[in-house]
């Protein structure tokens, strides 16, 4: 019956069973009240049908107890629905630690996807079963929305900043991907497929198919030299700029005394608006690369800098906050 006339999509992620259960909970509450009110209305309608022309109803003006009851009970139920939904959402908005990071760029009217080893896909995402996946997404033009109903997840893709979302695929298969924020003429055909494979198959696919072409690490490393980043960001920390070893995802101490986590957004901001946050002990010397790098190039550089996160930071010129550690 589900196959013939489905009422819900397949459950293919860690969120799907919870979301469906939450849905059923709310359905139960709604059905209860809908049936109760409908029954009451129909029952009263027949029981109190006017019997003769001059009949009037019994003037009952109200009842404080009833009013209190039907404010308090819905309020409690509402809070329950809110709380459960909030728990799921807070979990959803905080990506876990060790995720497989996939970069997604939305543009009119296609999805450009980049796997961790640089492999590019268009309107397709291949993923391994059972691993936490984080999508880091930006838009090149208008607002889009990356939506996979089988996973019960979606997130807007906004020009001007990154949005991230995470989930863990739990079942191999092929699932529909939609754009879920109206974005112009071909919004309806900005769709694709998410293919979830067993972990071994995924690894094979990743290295096999068109292997390491346009590997962002390599591209990023090349850019790092070509754009002269290397002339200041010495890895031994003795340059005019902090070493980037061990920086990614660690705390950075700023000149104004604040500390900040060097995540993707921080790296992007440092490239485009270097004077927004100055690392303690350094001068505001870095030029801005606004308008000189595409989103993909920024992603490549970020990949490269990320690859340095396990390199040992130099004793001085580390660019990280003293009591450093993963966030």
């Amino acid at each position, binding site marked *: 019956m589900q196959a013939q006339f489905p009422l819900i999509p397949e459950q293919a992620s860690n969120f799907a069973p919870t979301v469906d259960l939450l849905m059923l909970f709310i359905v139960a509450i709604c059905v209860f009240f809908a049936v109760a009110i409908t029954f009451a209305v129909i029952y009263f309608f027949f029981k109190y049908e006017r019997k003769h022309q001059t009949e009037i109803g019994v003037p009952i003006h109200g009842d404080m107890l009833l009013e209190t009851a039907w404010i308090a009970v819905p309020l409690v139920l509402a809070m329950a629905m809110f709380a459960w939904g909030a728990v799921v959402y807070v979990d959803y908005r905080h990506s876990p630690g060790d995720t497989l990071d996939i970069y997604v760029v939305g543009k009119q009217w296609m999805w450009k996807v980049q796997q961790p080893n640089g492999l590019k896909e268009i309107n397709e995402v291949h993923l391994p079963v059972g691993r936490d996946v984080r999508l880091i997404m930006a838009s090149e033009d208008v607002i889009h929305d990356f939506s996979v109903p089988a996973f019960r997840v979606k997130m807007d893709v906004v020009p001007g900043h990154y949005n991230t979302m995470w989930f863990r695929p739990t079942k191999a298969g092929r699932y529909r991907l939609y754009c879920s924020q109206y974005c112009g003429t071909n919004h309806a055909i900005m769709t694709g497929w998410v293919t979830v494979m067993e972990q071994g198959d995924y690894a094979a696919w990743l290295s096999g198919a068109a292997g390491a072409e346009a590997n962002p690490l390599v591209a990023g490393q090349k850019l790092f030299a070509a754009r002269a980043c290397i002339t200041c960001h010495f890895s031994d920390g003795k340059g005019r700029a902090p070493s980037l070893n061990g920086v990614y995802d660690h705390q950075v101490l700023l000149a104004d005394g604040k500390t900040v986590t060097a995540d993707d957004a921080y790296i992007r901001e440092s490239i485009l*608006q270097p*004077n927004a946050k100055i690392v303690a002990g350094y001068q*505001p010397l870095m*030029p*801005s690369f*606004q308008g000189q790098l595409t989103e993909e190039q920024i992603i490549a550089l970020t990949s490269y800098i990320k690859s340095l996160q396990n390199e040992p930071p130099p004793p001085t010129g580390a660019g990280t906050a003293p009591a450093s550690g993963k966030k």
Partner: protein
Amino acid sequence: MHRTGELYGQFETLEQQKESAALGMWVFLATEVLFFGGLFMTYTLNRHYYGTAFGVGSNTLDLKLGGLNTVILILSSLTMAMSVWASHVGKRKATTGFLVATLILGTAFLGVKVIEYKQKFDHHLIPGYHFQIDYRAQHPSPNDDPKEIEAEKEELSKAFAKDPDLNAHAQLYFSLYFGMTGLHALHMIVGAGMLLWLIRQSMLGRFTPTYNTPVEMIGLYWHFVDIVWIYLFPLLYLIDRHQ
């Protein structure tokens, strides 16, 4: 057609008519607060993000002219309040006189705004294709004080170092400058129109101690427009002026 001062058909008493007019004007002013509010919200956010550019933009505004306009408007609120008082005590000539004074002051305000807007036009500070925040610094006119130009050049180079996108962000500032002062000026023009009507009615002797509702209501409107300027002036003119 009803002549001013008579009881309109839908009301029972003059008292009710006056109460309705007053409540109506206050409710209308509430809508105006929300109307300007959207712009103030946009201003707040953008100033938070782009403080440097807002400082630079603010410094291009002529503080003397802005200050003068502030004084003019406050004075005009005084003359408006005086005309309301005069109408309360039945002094017809004084009512008319104070209304005329208010109108003259309001027109002076608008005249100063025209001068300011022209300055912005000359310095390529109107948002659009020709917007260039450092146009004046690059192309000073013979009348410009060289020391001022030097100071501006230095300020700009510091600002550009902090914010490479200074031009774009300064354009945001000026969009808000023209948007907010333009909307305000539009309200002043409408106010001036209403003052003209009031002056005519006052000259015809329509306002008495028992009936001066239009003077009071338009007075309320005028005071509101004045208060909006009191907020606009520091927010637009007085950023980063402490040096």
